[in-house]
């Protein structure tokens, strides 16, 4: 269809590979129908919201404040995704060397890669925002359709920033540190969003007002450049045009300034060196296959890149739990609120850990060729993932013991159910994770994620029923 080796040909190749490797396609028989159904539901809900909950006309300053808050959340989440996608796409595909060895211009290769990442970053948000934009346009606000332009442009901007950071960082420190950096950003954004959501509880009303005012223009500075992104987001033509121009300019600048660095081989799977020496605990030979397999699983788990950041990210639930247990925060019926949260978290951690173990098992044939029972590998995986989950959950469980000891049996029973369900599901249907090493195949699916969340929610609900005196 396109001339071989042309930019369009390369872009088509990239999009084809991204689509074939996408989580959506790999689980299409399970996921496509729910995705379409959810999109339709979103659209209906958006129409209902816009029709029935139309607020009185808001001032321009308030609209800009709302747009700014949305932009902060959106940019942060997009940047987090773009950083991990940049590293993932550039290194795990492993075809950078082949492309760079071809007579195709490096700038074309980089451009195609950046467009691919920007598209993958924009797609989910566009799906969400488009529903609201369509509804607003139907009910007399056609400028809301600017979302279709602004979100892809914002994705292009954050992708350019992500590529700039990753390529520069890789050149200086190597891909492993670059990946650590992206995980740290993801964690920081998670904590930031959580903290911002809780801000009204911690910040005095006067200070909170000052915080909001920082994101809001006054009558005199409403035309200042700082408010242009928000005004573009709201669909004003000139700010939107300027925002697009700036995004494209930055995207282009990154392309022309980083193409050489990219081509020089800084971004190459081959540049990924081995991890630090695993001296600790080495030399501890064990005679029992089960024990040695658990140890192997725990080692693989501990060496999974992003284990700490992703575990911390998932464990943010523990912040309100701790506050409730220590009496710093009162909500609903007190400690009984934390029980379902802990049950849910325990299940999600078990699912996360078993998915890592399943994804890291590169040589199942080794175990299959050994003189051990076929179930040994499964049981060792369950044991290692349970152990890791219980280590994280130990302190909160002790907190419940001291603050609401009578709820402990219900907590432990539901936690056991939640962990066990997620282990059984997670071994068969692991969740999508960052690849344990560059060049490795993704094994997880969205289906696994849906099943795991459902199982955890079920057990959390059971726990809530058990500890709430009058649930209905």
């Amino acid at each position, binding site marked *: 269809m396109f001339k071989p080796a042309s930019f369009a040909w390369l872009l088509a190749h990239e999009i084809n590979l991204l689509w074939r490797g996408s989580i959506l396609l790999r689980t299409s028989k399970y996921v496509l129908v729910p995705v379409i159904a959810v999109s339709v539901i979103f659209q209906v809900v958006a129409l209902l919201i816009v029709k029935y909950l139309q607020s009185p006309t808001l001032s321009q300053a308030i609209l800009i404040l709302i747009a700014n808050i949305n932009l902060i959340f959106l940019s942060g989440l997009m940047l987090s995704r773009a950083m991990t996608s940049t590293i993932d796409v550039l290194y795990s595909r492993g075809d950078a060397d082949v492309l760079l060895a071809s007579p195709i211009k490096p700038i074309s290769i980089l451009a195609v890669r950046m467009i691919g990442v920007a598209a993958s970053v924009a797609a989910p948000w566009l799906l969400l925002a488009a529903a609201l934009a369509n509804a607003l346009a139907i009910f007399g606000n056609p400028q809301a359709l600017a979302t279709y332009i602004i979100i892809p442009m914002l994705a292009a901007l954050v992708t350019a920033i992500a590529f700039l950071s990753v390529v520069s960082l890789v050149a200086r420190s190597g891909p492993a540190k670059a990946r650590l950096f992206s995980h740290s950003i993801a964690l920081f954004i998670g904590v930031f969003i959580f903290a911002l959501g809780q801000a009204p509880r911690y910040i005095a009303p006067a200070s909170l007002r000052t915080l909001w005012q920082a994101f809001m223009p006054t009558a005199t500075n409403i035309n200042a450049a700082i408010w242009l992104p928000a005004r573009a987001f709201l669909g004003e033509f000139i700010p939107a045009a300027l925002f697009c121009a700036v995004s494209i300019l930055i995207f282009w600048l990154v392309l022309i300034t980083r193409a050489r660095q990219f081509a020089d081989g800084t971004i190459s799977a081959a540049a990924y060196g081995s991890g630090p020496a695993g001296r600790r605990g*080495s030399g501890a030979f064990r005679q029992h296959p089960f024990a040695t397999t658990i140890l192997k699983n725990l080692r693989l788990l501990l060496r999974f890149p992003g284990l700490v950041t992703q575990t911390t990210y998932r464990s943010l639930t523990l912040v309100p739990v701790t506050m409730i247990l220590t009496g710093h925060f009162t909500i609903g019926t007190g400690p009984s609120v934390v029980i379902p949260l802990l049950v849910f978290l325990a299940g999600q951690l078990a699912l996360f850990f078993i998915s890592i173990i399943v994804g890291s098992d590169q040589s199942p044939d080794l175990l299959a060729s050994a*003189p051990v029972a076929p179930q040994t590998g499964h049981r060792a995986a369950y044991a290692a993932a349970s152990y890791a989950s219980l280590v994280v959950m130990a302190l909160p469980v002790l907190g419940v013991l001291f603050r609401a000891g009578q709820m402990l049996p219900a907590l432990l029973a539901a936690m056991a159910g939640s962990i066990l369900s997620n282990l059984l599901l997670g071994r068969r249907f692991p969740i999508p994770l960052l690849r344990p090493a560059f060049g490795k195949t993704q094994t997880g699916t969205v289906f696994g994620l849906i099943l795991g969340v459902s199982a955890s929610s079920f057990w959390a609900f059971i726990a809530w029923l058990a500890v709430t005196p009058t649930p209905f």
Partner: protein
Amino acid sequence: MINALTVRGLCKSFAKPIINQLDLTIAPGEIYALLGPNGAGKTTTLRMIAGLLKPDAGSIEVFGTDVLTAPLTAKAMMAWLPDEPLLYDKLSALEYLEFVAGLWQVEPAIAATRAETLLETFGLWQHRHQRCEGFSRGMKQKTVLAGALIHTPKLFILDEPLTGLDAAAAKLVKSILTQCAAEGAAIIITTHILEVAERLATRIGILSGGNLLAQGSFAELQTAAGQHADTSLEDVFLHLTTRADV
């Protein structure tokens, strides 16, 4: 004397027949090279012997133990090395040997001593704490060979064991295999390097289209192919496989 490996009437089909009525025996101390063009069924045969793939028909015995009815007993005597090294990138070489020794239940003190000796032998001792992800193909191959040797198997099943090895390492592996055979172990090996088979193997089998075309010593194969005594194994191999294709 009991055979190290006895294969009788082995059959396996996927979409089409891969192995047809394969009969094979290997005596202790013998090195048997299984040769064949790509897709001949060599790896499928080895995977069935290793207990990783269930045959459609036939029997496999390792030192008198049926692989299908007593797989754990049979596996305890075997070491399986596929063409792609069975390694864990995030484990160090020493940790890998710990894992393999644990799976084969080698007594810890003995395993530690053997691990040290093997790592020294393969020139990996100074790299023992490095993760395998940083190893070259040759170092990975040497690590899995050390893993195979740590539990002193009586039957080695080796699929292209010399892939990725430099000349010195390949010579070392050949000498280790010869030594293992001299000590009574049986070895079944596949290779596309016919000189290796010619020099290393005591018997050679040529597989094509799932059928064993010929087997025996090199001299017997020359006779079977109607070739002169100075004909190379490459010529014999091409003659037999081309004739089978026709």
